[in-house]
């Protein structure tokens, strides 16, 4: 028993170190955003600000319409994309899970093959810009790559096949329910766990996506949160030219540039950190579930 106690304590100690390592960078970000600009110029970012200041947030709020707009775009794209994608995934997976559907084997291979082989960036870019002409439209943030993937279809297919009793579908069929009705009021009702998992991962993929914006947008008015953050980090002038602050035309020496960078990152990450306690259970479960299927 004594051996167990030693191991238990050792595990706690190592995991406490890991927890600190995982959280510390976020604390650095938050405390830096609340530090006085001059303090940062002379002493750098630090965990314990000597001179407290909300100057950076005041600056961002004084001209904050861009941030609100970016949030609106990200929210729109996430809701439409994740919702449509989830429905399409379920609609594709369900017939493939039915033993009596004649095309199921062939179609399952069509889905599966996309996991093994893909065309990569250049051909996809040409398809979406030359054939579908999505450049600089909101659809460029929704359609390319993220809407649906073979992995999620396989995950749902397995769930439908193993967790929904065939007898239920058969009896509903005998009662005269049509296929769409069965899908909507029986299959989806009984599949909350897998729908929640896939929906959560779809939502996170859209929320965190910056690739589509960088590849397909040159019009910055369509930028979502991640693209806005990306531009601000790599290009300080962008902050000035897009009227974030009260003085719009140029960056003045009074612009608290270094703290503003941290403050805008905090604004970008805080919704996720606040929402995390509510969905962490499903997130961890989803990771474990994906692993079982491999």
């Amino acid at each position, binding site marked *: 028993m004594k051996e*167990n106690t030693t191991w238990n304590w050792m*595990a*706690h100690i*190592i*995991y406490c170190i*890991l*927890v600190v390592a*995982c959280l510390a*960078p976020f604390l650095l970000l938050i405390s830096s955003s609340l530090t006085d600009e001059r303090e940062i*110029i002379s*002493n*750098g*970012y*630090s*965990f314990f600000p000597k001179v407290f200041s909300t100057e950076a947030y005041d600056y961002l709020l004084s001209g904050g319409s861009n941030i609100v707009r970016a949030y609106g775009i990200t929210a729109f794209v996430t809701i439409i994309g994740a919702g449509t994608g989830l429905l*399409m995934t379920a*609609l594709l997976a369900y*017939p493939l899970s*039915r033993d009596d559907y004649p*095309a199921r084997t062939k179609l399952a291979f*069509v889905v599966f093959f*996309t*996991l*093994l*082989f*893909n*065309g*990569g*960036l*250049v*051909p996809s*870019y040409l*398809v979406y810009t030359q*054939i579908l002409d999505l450049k600089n439209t909101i659809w460029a943030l929704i*359609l*390319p790559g993220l809407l*649906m993937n073979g992995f999620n279809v396989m995950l749902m297919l397995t769930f439908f096949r193993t967790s929904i009793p065939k007898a239920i579908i058969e009896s509903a069929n005998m009662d005269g329910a*049509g*296929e*769409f009705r069965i899908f909507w009021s029986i299959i989806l009702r009984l599949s909350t766990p897998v729908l929640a998992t896939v929906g959560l991962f779809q939502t996170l993929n859209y*929320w*965190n996506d*910056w*690739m589509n914006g*960088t590849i397909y947008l040159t019009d910055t008015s369509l930028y979502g949160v991640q693209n806005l*953050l*990306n531009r601000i*980090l790599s290009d300080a002038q962008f902050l000035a030219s897009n009227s974030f602050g009260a003085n719009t035309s140029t960056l003045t020496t009074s612009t608290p540039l270094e703290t503003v*960078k*941290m403050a805008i*990152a905090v604004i*970008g*990450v805080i919704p996720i950190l606040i929402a*995390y306690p509510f969905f*962490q259970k499903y*997130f*961890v479960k989803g*990771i474990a579930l994906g*692993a079982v299927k*491999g």
Partner: protein
Amino acid sequence: MAQIATDSKATIRGKKKRRFRKYLPLTLMVLPGLLYLLINNYIPMIGLLIAFKEINFAKGILASDWVGFKNFEYLFTTSDAYVITRNTILYNALWIVLGTSLAIMLAILLNEVRQKIFARFYQSIIVLPHLISIIIVAYLGYALLSLDTGLINKSILPALGLNEVNFYFEPKYWPYILTAVHLWKGIGFSVVVYFASIIGIDEEYYEAARLDGASKWQQIRSITIPLIAPVIIMLTLLSIGRIFYSDFGLFYQVPMNSGALYETTNVIDTYVYRGLLGLGDISMSAAAGFYQSIVGFALVLTANLIVRKLSKDNALF
């Protein structure tokens, strides 16, 4: 005779028709998804062939001239092809070894935490970095590494009596930085995966071992590791199958796309991206993409073949 033949043909056709009608609703359900896969996945696969063209936007893609292997000749005569292949493979190989062994150790350790509520809490926290977009990670990196204001240059190095380092212009530090960021962001995910398979092990094995007086180390060596070996082997082979692909955001955003760092931060994915949208050459980019897709596909097939030889249940197909 002829009459019977046409009759049976007609009934077969009738049967087919009826079957088609019976399953029409199911067919309608799969259509949107299939259409998407066609556009998003299958047309780009055919599109890989543009690697054999000299792409000229003025003429249009279809009318551009076929040039055979010329794009590949250009690509492989530059040192780029060597650097990006080397970087991609070495980083992935290092991370497979390091990430897997560290994750297994941590998962075993997590299983030793007796208070379940803490085990859950630790899991939630260590996967948190996996949840954050790579853009935010780049900001965190900047807060630590920036020359003028970063925590390392302003607080840690002076405290140790060392000179400041211009990280964004010094390629030699990046293998360490990228490895640290990769592990920070991804280790929690792997720990949760291995932990899930460890808690699936029947407690009776351990009880029997304890009755025989086995120590903790012996239990780990003779029960835990062998029983999760299939999962370890499967995940490792799958990562080997993906050794030609890398986390684009990590290699592009975290070094802030600094040209001075390409020596140690350029991988196939970033090369293809810069060729397409940066200053590079789109035909070379297409050639590099083709090279990645084809070699990557061959590696996935090989990895799967090996998994299937080892244990049929764990193979993908």
